[in-house]
């Protein structure tokens, strides 16, 4: 059978590497064909790709939602064509997907903020720095929404800054920002994997000791698991990227065989130093 795996992510984004690895694993485990494509948040291009999959009479489609509401019509078209279409990574409840597999970015954001508040790391009047690779990309925006819902009532301020998807530039911009605002920053939330994974290098360059500024954020990369183990990052969000892809494709396969999936699969866990080794092992393929 032929499945189309269509992502709004960028092939450049480390976390998508793991999502893709899950899809490949599934393809080799089951012997089915999985055609993959990345669309860098370009809605029009992603819609076109999903429609191309429908035109190609795919056995199943798994796709992410680049923007809430943007795939409503396409999901309908897939339904009409009787092609199972599974949503993963970013939910869009308004669209008629057969099922959703993944976490919820708004919830993740709320959890990070709540973590900082609950552990007493930030209080009223504090300022939180939230670097993100691409401001305006859905994941960051949804996370911000969750964070806002916690911080705003408590009078905690925050600022989102752009870090880009380029490793050297990420470090550079974060170093610049931290150098200037070191006094002002009470905590950091890394809204993406690349920024969270760069914390150690940034701290080292600016001369901030691990733990001096509390950090939470994404944790789907080896860089971050190491940072958690070494005390640079207090807590990191695990999204089960490989598993998400794998399960989404399984559901699509199942639906293609006539068994409708009547449930969503919610993934994700916030880990600290004590459990970080588990994820470090997963990521390094141990």
């Amino acid at each position, binding site marked *: 059978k032929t499945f189309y795996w269509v992502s709004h992510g960028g092939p450049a984004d480390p976390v998508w590497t793991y999502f893709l690895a899950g899809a490949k694993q599934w393809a080799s485990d089951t012997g089915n064909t999985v055609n993959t494509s990345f669309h860098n948040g370009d809605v029009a291009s992603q819609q076109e790709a999903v429609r191309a999959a429908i035109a*190609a009479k795919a056995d199943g489609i798994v796709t992410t939602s680049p923007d809430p509401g943007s795939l409503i019509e396409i999901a309908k078209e897939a339904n009409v064509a009787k092609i199972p279409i599974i949503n993963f990574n970013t939910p869009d409840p308004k669209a008629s997907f057969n099922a959703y597999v993944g976490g919820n970015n708004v919830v993740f954001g709320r959890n990070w903020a709540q973590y900082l508040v609950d552990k007493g790391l930030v209080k009223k009047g504090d300022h939180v720095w939230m670097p993100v690779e691409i401001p305006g990309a859905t994941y960051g925006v949804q996370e911000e929404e969750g964070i806002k819902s916690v911080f705003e009532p408590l009078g905690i301020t925050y600022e989102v800054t752009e870090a880009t998807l380029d490793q050297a530039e990420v470090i550079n911009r974060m170093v610049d920002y931290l150098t200037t605002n070191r006094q002002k920053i009470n905590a950091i939330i890394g809204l993406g994997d690349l920024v969270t994974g760069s914390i150690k290098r940034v701290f080292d360059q600016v001369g901030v000791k691990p733990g001096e500024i509390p950090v939470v954020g994404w944790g789907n990369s080896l860089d971050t698991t190491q940072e958690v183990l070494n005390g640079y990052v207090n807590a990191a969000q695990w999204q089960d990227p490989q598993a998400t892809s794998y399960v989404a494709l399984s559901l699509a396969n199942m639906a293609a065989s006539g068994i409708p999936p009547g449930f969503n699969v919610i993934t994700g866990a916030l880990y600290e130093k004590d459990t970080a080794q588990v994820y470090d092992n997963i990521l390094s393929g141990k």
Partner: protein
Amino acid sequence: MEHRSLIQRLVAKPEFGPFVLLVVEVAVFWSINPDFLSPLNISNTLAFTVELGLIALAMTLLMTSGEFDLSVGSLFGFSPVLMWTLFNAGVVSLPLAFVVALIVAAIIGYVNGWFVTRLKIPSFLVTLGMLLVVRGTALFVTDGFPQRTWKADGNWLATILVGDFYVGPFRIYASLFWFIAAVIILGYLLTKTRTGNWIQAAGGNPGAARARGVQVDRVKVGLFMLSSTMAALAGIISSIRTSAANPNSGTGYELEVIAMVVIGGTALTGGRGTIIGTVLGILILRIMRNGIVLIGVPGLAYNIFIGAIILGMMALHSWLERRHQAGT
């Protein structure tokens, strides 16, 4: 003058190279996956093609006049955001918001043109700076949040711009007609009118054109405004069709659009441009992207293929050109 057969005359046209490329491309994809020519896929490909195409058409004229515009992608993202922000805020009606967005785009084009013609700064730098400013503004005003767009359904403006209907098994969007209209009008403008002659002269030898009293600067400013406005229109059409208005959309379109224009045969250095060629260039590049997904090239290898095909097509193109110019 010698008489030549119809075929010989067709072969001698500069658009012949891109045309051959297009035919070869379609044939290859079709032979690999026959669904490639299914009505559904054709309709699907056309929808987005015409949106990018609108920008490429305006860019053709601008490049013929010897300038280019890197800010189109950012306007593609910014204009719908502006329109929906105004509308969602309840400030104005949708058609008014639409007009305001286009006017703002035209003003941005004017500023581009002003910098290029008055301050004599290369358009590369001006529009690169403008790209950053416009993209930045889109992000800043929305705080990065996408705008809601679904209230558009049923609005007459939305219907006029992107309403869809079926012609047999083909789903046609109204934007296709806008594209065809633009092809006809701009093609006419470039080849048949006095303004078209000025555009070509402005790109070919601005000094000479100026010496003949051609208002080179005015022509260029006008084309910058056209290109911004078309990018805005394309962005708005796309945002209504895809129900998404994200400040980041349109990223990287500038290079794709320029590539379309150049593949079609318009000179990168100005002075020579062809709208028909651009239409072929648009189809070549968009069909390539669609075909690659359809025949199942792995996601990570996508760029390798696009790049290799651009290089291969250019090589073929240059070979055809030389064969046809050698004339020995």
